[in-house]
């Protein structure tokens, strides 16, 4: 039985200007899951994330973390945000400090760690994400991809239980996208639950073990990547595309080369199946 980490119950969120960004969302987030949230622009992904982190308070409905409703007091929020970290889509909206070192150390200091521990953690994360070469550069001279990596390091250094990444692969070149991909794999293997928001069907298909499709503030579908991406009407309704590899294997299945129950997720897997 999968353990529920977070439960979203009938969550609605209305902005101050009365636009309804989320409408009665119900969603269970299981521990150790790799969840991809997909949906076109303006479907409410980012708003949902800010609700999960307690930055926004639901207009109606509630969110439970480990069975307990979120506590919006100062102390409650503090303990929630220790466990749930968000990497924002636009690094420039997240990086506030002019020095990379200062930027990454902001979170751990707020966790109440002492300087030696913070320095240790920062050094380690900079190593993993290859940030060390530009550690002494100011934030405003970094390239888009470098900023993105710093923004990911910002949150990873806080070692959250649930990591939310809003479009983690945008602005990254293939090499660094691959690097983030590997890090996400390591994280889920080590027991962290990861949610990503993405438009990239290929990325979601390869990485996720569950996909939730948001459309016009509603949850349109919730299922395994195979289920979601084989449903053509659903994809059309949500403005999503079928992953290239799935299209290819569909063709191969029609030609009788691949059996019906095969779902290769990478080019390498496909090659193995074809042998």
């Amino acid at each position, binding site marked *: 039985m999968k353990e529920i980490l977070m439960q979203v119950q009938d969550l609605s969120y209305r902005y101050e200007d009365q636009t309804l960004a989320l409408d009665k969302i119900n969603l269970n987030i299981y521990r150790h899951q790799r969840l991809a949230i997909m949906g076109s622009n303006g479907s409410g992904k980012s708003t949902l994330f800010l609700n999960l982190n307690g930055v926004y308070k639901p207009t109606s409905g509630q969110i439970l973390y480990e069975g307990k409703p979120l506590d919006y007091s100062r102390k409650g929020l503090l303990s929630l*945000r220790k466990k749930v970290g968000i990497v924002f889509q636009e690094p420039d909206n997240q990086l506030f*400090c002019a020095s990379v*070192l200062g930027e990454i150390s*902001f979170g751990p*200091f*707020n966790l109440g760690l002492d300087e030696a521990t913070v320095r240790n953690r920062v050094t380690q994360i900079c190593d993993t994400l290859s940030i060390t070469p530009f550690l002494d550069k100011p934030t*405003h001279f970094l390239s888009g991809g470098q900023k993105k990596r710093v923004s990911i390091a910002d949150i990873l250094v806080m070692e959250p239980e649930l990591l939310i990444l809003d479009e983690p692969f945008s602005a990254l070149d293939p090499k660094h996208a691959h690097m983030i991909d590997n890090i996400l794999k390591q994280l889920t293997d080590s027991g962290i639950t990861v949610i990503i928001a993405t438009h990239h069907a290929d990325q979601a298909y390869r990485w996720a073990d569950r996909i939730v499709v948001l459309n016009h503030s509603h949850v349109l579908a919730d299922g395994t990547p195979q289920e979601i991406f084989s449903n053509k009407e659903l994809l059309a309704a949500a403005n999503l595309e079928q992953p290239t590899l799935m299209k290819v294997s569909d063709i191969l299945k029609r030609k009788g080369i691949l059996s019906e129950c095969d779902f290769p997720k990478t080019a390498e897997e496909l090659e193995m199946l074809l042998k």
Partner: protein
Amino acid sequence: MILLDKLAYSSPIRQKSPALKTLFAAGSLTICVSFRHSLVCLLILCCMAVCTLRFANLSAKRYLRFLTGPFLFLMLSSVAILFFFSSSPQDLISIPCFSGYLGISHTSFSHWYQLMIVAFSSISCLYFLILTTPITDLLTVLRKLHCPWLLLELMLLIYRAIFILLDLADAIQISQNCRLGNHSFRSKLSGMGQMLSVLLVRSLKKSSLLYDAMESRLYDGEIRVLEEHHPAKKQEWIFCFIWLIVCTVLSLF
């Protein structure tokens, strides 16, 4: 602004202790301003110029260009001190003018000369500091000097925000130029106006987004971050103190 910042970051002595650099520059500056001793000021000016050219990543030509701005400003604003109007002729230069004389006297000239040399040497001290020490390092020094934290955090955030807004302004300007937004003076003006209004709206939006992001990282009203640590060697401190003492002693004579 961006240029100065880039130069500061690429300075060969960027990794040296910012406290030492600040003491060297600010100490010399204090001596210039408090004693107003022309020869010592001249000495400091020369020393700072040599140090800047040696330790900052810029050519002599560019350094001189940096100095022309303040020079023109000083020249224009010190005219009133140099010349004055009186009924009797002055001892240095006198130009008959209406019913009196417009002229320069020995006292006014030495006054002007002293003012110029003090101002110039002070500028050279500041140039040395900003061309070798990035703002983030200066903030570290100010923090050590127990400057109020509110002021420091504001400086930190404003410094970052300047670059975000400059980037944005740049992008908007490029996109306007790409669509021939600058084909006439009129369109340039309206483009400028539109850019400024967009900048205002975006900066408000960005600040609220940035605040959300900081909130989600447990921001509790106080910014604590790691700072780079570059301790200076003992000899460097001693050298700096000797320089300051020599300048002070020379000024007293």
